[in-house]
């Protein structure tokens, strides 16, 4: 497939996932702030912004509303939900002929509905906006699942989705590394990841940090665990790589990075998990960045516009 389109699909996958996960994280955080008056709104907000990679504005007391504005509505911040939606839409527009019409109309009408939903959120609270984003992301995933051929294009889209998911779950965990193992904050983490129900059924209600981290990092069955996302991304890359297999090591750098990260988690003793959790999370984040670069190098040979120069030799 056309390298430029592959790149667009990969980024559509990433941006939609990012919008979805950001909405989930924010949804839970905002509710926590509203429900629990003892929480220091400014400090919590700043911590969340740092984790999401948004520089908090200096000299400004943050509360639920400014937080929502920055992380959800702002068009200036590249990491905000609205920016992610519009980037996803822009990428779909330039790769229009490789996505299905349903998928395009889903993203386009999502994009078109943003202003109206923003106004509604101002009236009745931000939660409606978050659930709108989550619903649309789910609809996108469903339409992609039912209308796209399982060809390379699909694989790039899914690759983007899972790469982004690893990144976002890691960020989510990062937001809690300072908490006490018994902190109620860990429930928030599970809710953000949509993992609360599944967790409760798996561990029969016992809530502690080790198990939460274990569930979100290592669980083999839960689709939002880092391990699962890494395995899925790895499998996409395996299918994408058509080169003859090598006899030593991995075929390509991206597969090697993902496989290494995956197997480290796979064969980790559960009790070692909380030792140097920060380092482990940072390592995963770095790995994801490297994977992104390796994929771009291997597949997205799209070149920037060439500026031609005219040369002429006189007589």
């Amino acid at each position: 497939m056309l390298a430029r389109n592959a790149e667009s699909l990969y980024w559509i996958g990433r941006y939609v996932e990012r919008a979805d996960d950001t909405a989930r994280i924010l949804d839970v955080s905002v509710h926590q702030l509203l429900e629990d008056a003892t929480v220091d709104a400014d400090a919590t907000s700043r911590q969340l912004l740092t984790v999401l990679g948004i520089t908090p504005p200096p000299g400004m007391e943050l509360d639920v509303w400014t937080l929502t504005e920055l992380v959800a509505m702002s068009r200036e911040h590249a990491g905000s939900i609205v920016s992610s939606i519009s980037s996803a839409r822009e990428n779909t527009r330039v790769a229009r002929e490789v996505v299905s019409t349903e998928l395009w109309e889903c993203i386009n009408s999502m994009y078109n509905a943003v202003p109206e939903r923003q106004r509604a959120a101002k009236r009745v609270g931000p939660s409606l906006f978050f659930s709108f984003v989550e619903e649309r992301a789910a609809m996108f995933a469903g339409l992609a699942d039912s209308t796209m051929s399982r060809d390379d294009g699909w694989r790039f889209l899914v690759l983007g989705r899972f790469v982004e998911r690893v990144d976002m779950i890691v960020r989510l965990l990062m937001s809690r590394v300072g908490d006490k193992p018994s902190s109620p904050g860990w429930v928030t983490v599970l809710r953000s990841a949509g993992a609360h129900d599944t967790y409760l059924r798996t561990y029969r209600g016992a809530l502690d940090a080790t198990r939460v981290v274990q569930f979100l990092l290592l669980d083999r069955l839960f689709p939002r665990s880092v391990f699962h996302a890494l395995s899925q991304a790895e499998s996409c890359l395996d299918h994408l790589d058509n080169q003859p297999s090598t006899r030593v090591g991995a075929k390509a750098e991206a597969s090697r990075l993902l496989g290494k990260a995956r197997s480290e988690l796979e064969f980790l003793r559960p009790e070692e998990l909380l030792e140097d959790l920060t380092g482990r999370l940072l390592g995963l984040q770095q790995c994801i960045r490297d994977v992104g670069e390796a994929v771009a190098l291997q597949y997205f040979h799209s070149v920037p516009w060439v500026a031609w120069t005219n040369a002429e030799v006189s007589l």
Partner: protein
Amino acid sequence: MTTTPEAVRQSRTGTMDPVSWRVRVVHTTGYRYEAPVVQSYNEARLTPRSDRRQNLVVARLETTPATRSYRYTDYWGTEVTSFDLHAPHTELKIVASSVVETTEHVQPIDDASWADLRGDGIADRYGELLEPTRYAPRNKELISIARKLRTGRRPMEAVLAVSEWVHDQLTYHQGTTGVHSSAIDAWQAREGVCQDYAHLTLAMLRSIGIPARYVSGYLHTKPDGAIGETVRGESHAWIEAWTGGWWGFDPTNDIEIGQRHVWVAIGRDYGDVSPLKGTYSGGAASAIEVSVDMTRLA
């Protein structure tokens, strides 16, 4: 660029040349780039043609780095060699060599009157050779000078008069103008190279209704060149005018076209016949040292 006019002046009046020459031309040119270039597309117009006066015996064109070249004949009948390079390189060298037989002086043709030139037939047939161009634009002052030169002369005589006027007006100065200067710039500076002489002559001839075209080629610098002696020749440019038939004249040296002139391409102006032009992506390029070696073989 071109040899100084004085050196060749005597040819007009000098000794009789033998009827025909056989000349070998080796033209080396190219670019040097500041940074390695990985994409470059080039077209060379360096292969002499055959016609009544000139016979091409053999021609070849080599590039370094080596390329797979493609040849075609363009709208003006010029042999074009196109080639592209994709491996990183910092220098591109082109060597065009050919052996050409040339014959004696071209005589002016005096078959057309002013009325013939004004007739619809000629104006239509040579329409594109009567229009001003980028290098030979229209200029009011030049038009009035050309009109004065036309007075009392037949078209053929006017061609010679204009050429002589241009020759007297400009001082030959190598490097005074680049490829991109027009006839007007050169005239205002009162100096130029052979292209400027040709462009200025073209602009004036066209303004008085004489179809005229630009000729690029080479000039053997020694009128009495000895057989076997290799001289430093020059890339050169002159004009052809239609006065009942096409014939050439060299306004730079104020001489007729003879055995020493090897023609490569004709067009409306320099833009149609530029010997080497290309498009590449990367840093700045400069021309490498150009050399034209000419050897009279027979």
